[in-house]
């Protein structure tokens, strides 16, 4: 069984996603439980895989159908993506649990909940596949699974959501086509699609033009998917109008895994010694810096919770790209750590935003006055996660920024350090404005849709509380144990520079 873990992590939720509509025909409640169970099983297996990779100390290779690479599709699990897979599976399972009060299994509309859970599960499958695969075209297929599931989950949200989803569909398709084009150029230059094989064969390629065009296509393609600055147009509307319960997953990890794919391409496939690599780093750096400042400034303008969080995501994706632009060990370690920590932070913040909507239908910060008296646990989580976003120790957000700053100083790029500090201060402004409303704003009369008195004194259902607290706990754990994570990914990242 331990040998088949890489593929079981994907197959078990895949079975869940396909069985869910069938089971829902007879019992919607059990259809929902199938998906939640499958995602939790996947999470347990991903933790087992993480332990396995740590014990072996070398990457695990899984060959589909026994076809050895470069002919067959290969799954490669090394230090970096074992962490990513565990993160995706954890957030997937938590979000499926979190969704259940929002999408109650209703025998009258049994296929509404069945469709929702099935699509949510497909989103998780696509992200898990994107992180485990070692094949460039396979990554495209999984990326499209993620996108199609994402369009669906965004479209069933608020009233304006279908237009947001439609625009994301158009932009996302251009992104996917650009990625495919980049892969096509690499395939024409190397004749292989396996990433490890491609890295070896690219060293003999003398036609630099092909590689430059491929790189440009990949930056645009993956940049659209990760909402990097000038390509972010679809992101704010899509993230703020999406289905409330699925939003944490869409905002949290759907834009992180393309960033991880970018790391794969720019550090594992392309050789660091290529002459134009410096220029590529500079271009990505400019995009990142513009994105960081733009996202932070734009977030100041809005009073809607989800809009603020969506624009802050543009800024945070900029940090990840900044890590790639710095391009030394600390830069990459900071970027990978930021992928993980920001996934939990943004997921947690969207959980709190959805919880506020669930109980009081709060969408704007102006209505949040004195909510901390009525929802102490949610408010505490919000404060923890927001402080982590701003970058205060001992939370995880501080340490990823710390590594990024270390990398920038080591390269002598002090401008990047200044940008990091400036955007943290801007982040402090927009999050402290939320705190001000939360603790000192005027109390408004609101209808309580989950009265604590009727539910044994609980402010929210346990199915909402557990994911909320888990996200906050993960942020504190990642903050305190950041050196463990960095040690874990160190070996894989160092190999990039030794190769």
């Amino acid at each position, binding site marked *: 069984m331990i040998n088949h873990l890489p593929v079981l992590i994907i197959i078990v939720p895949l079975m869940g996603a396909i069985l869910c509509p069938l089971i829902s025909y007879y019992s919607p409640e059990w259809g929902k439980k199938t998906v939640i169970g499958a995602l939790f099983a996947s999470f347990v297996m991903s933790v087992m895989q993480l332990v396995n990779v740590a014990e072996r100390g070398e990457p695990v290779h899984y060959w589909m159908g026994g076809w050895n690479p470069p002919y067959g599709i290969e799954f490669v699990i090394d230090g970096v993506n074992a962490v990513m897979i565990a993160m995706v599976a954890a957030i997937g399972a938590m979000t499926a649990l979190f969704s259940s009060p929002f999408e109650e299994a209703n025998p009258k509309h049994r296929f509404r909940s069945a469709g929702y859970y099935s699509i949510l599960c497909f989103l998780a499958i696509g992200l898990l596949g994107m992180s485990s695969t070692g094949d460039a075209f396979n990554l495209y297929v999984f990326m499209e699974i993620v996108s199609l599931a994402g369009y669906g989950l965004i479209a069933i949200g608020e009233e304006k959501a279908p237009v947001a989803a439609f625009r994301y569909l158009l932009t996302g398709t251009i992104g996917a*086509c650009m990625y495919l084009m980049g892969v096509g150029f690499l395939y024409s230059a190397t004749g292989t699609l396996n990433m490890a094989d491609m890295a070896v064969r690219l060293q003999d390629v003398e036609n630099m033009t092909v590689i430059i065009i491929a790189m440009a296509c990949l930056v645009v393609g993956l940049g659209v998917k990760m909402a990097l600055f000038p390509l972010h147009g679809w992101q704010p509307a899509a993230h703020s109008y999406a289905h409330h319960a699925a939003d944490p997953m869409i905002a949290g990890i759907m834009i992180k895994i393309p960033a991880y794919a970018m790391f794969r391409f720019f550090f594992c496939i392309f050789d660091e010694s290529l002459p134009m690599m410096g220029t590529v780093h500079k271009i990505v750096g400019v995009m990142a810096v513009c994105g960081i400042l733009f996202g932070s400034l734009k977030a100041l303008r809005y009073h809607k919770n989800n809009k603020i969080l969506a624009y802050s995501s543009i800024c945070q994706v900029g940090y990840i790209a900044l890590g790639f632009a710095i391009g030394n060990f600390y830069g990459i370690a900071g970027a990978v750590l930021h992928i993980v920590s920001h996934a939990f932070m943004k997921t947690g913040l969207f959980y709190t935003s959805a919880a506020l909507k669930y109980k009081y239908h709060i969408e704007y910060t102006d209505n949040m006055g004195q909510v901390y008296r009525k929802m102490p646990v949610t408010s505490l989580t919000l404060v923890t996660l927001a402080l982590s976003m701003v970058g205060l120790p001992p939370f995880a957000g501080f340490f990823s920024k710390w590594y990024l700053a270390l990398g920038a100083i080591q390269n002598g790029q002090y401008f990047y350090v200044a940008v990091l500090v400036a955007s943290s201060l801007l982040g402090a402004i927009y999050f402290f404005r939320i705190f001000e409303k939360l603790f000192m704003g005027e109390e408004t009369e609101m209808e309580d849709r989950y009265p604590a008195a009727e539910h044994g004194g609980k402010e929210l259902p346990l199915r909402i509380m557990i994911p909320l607290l888990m996200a906050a706990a993960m942020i504190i754990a990642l903050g305190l144990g950041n050196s463990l994570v960095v040690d874990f990914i160190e070996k894989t990242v160092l190999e990039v520079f030794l190769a």
Partner: protein
Amino acid sequence: MIDVFEIFLAEKGIYMLTFILMGLGIFGMIVCGNYMKKIICMNIMQVAIIFFFLTLGQKDGGTLPVLVHNLTSAEEYINPLPHALMLTAIVVSLGTTGVALALLMKIKEIYGTIEEEEITGKRWKK
């Protein structure tokens, strides 16, 4: 003269035509105000990508890549991998178009129109 043209077409021209097609697709997606037209342009762009891959696998005098007894070297048949990849890409583009049409029906239901200008209430300044 014909020969020169054919050689040019085989070496670079076919790629140029493919990229013109792709550029037309993206241009249409940006310029068209009607969402249905945007979907059609999206399909044109995807077809251009499919052409691009298929031309990679093409060669002069190649035959079908099936098991035939007198085929001995890789020179004699066409590389089947790009075709296999594009089969997947066609399926993906079918799925994307399907989702896009479903979204369009939903948009029509909510707004009663599929014209961008009427939905957003903004007009391009002429």
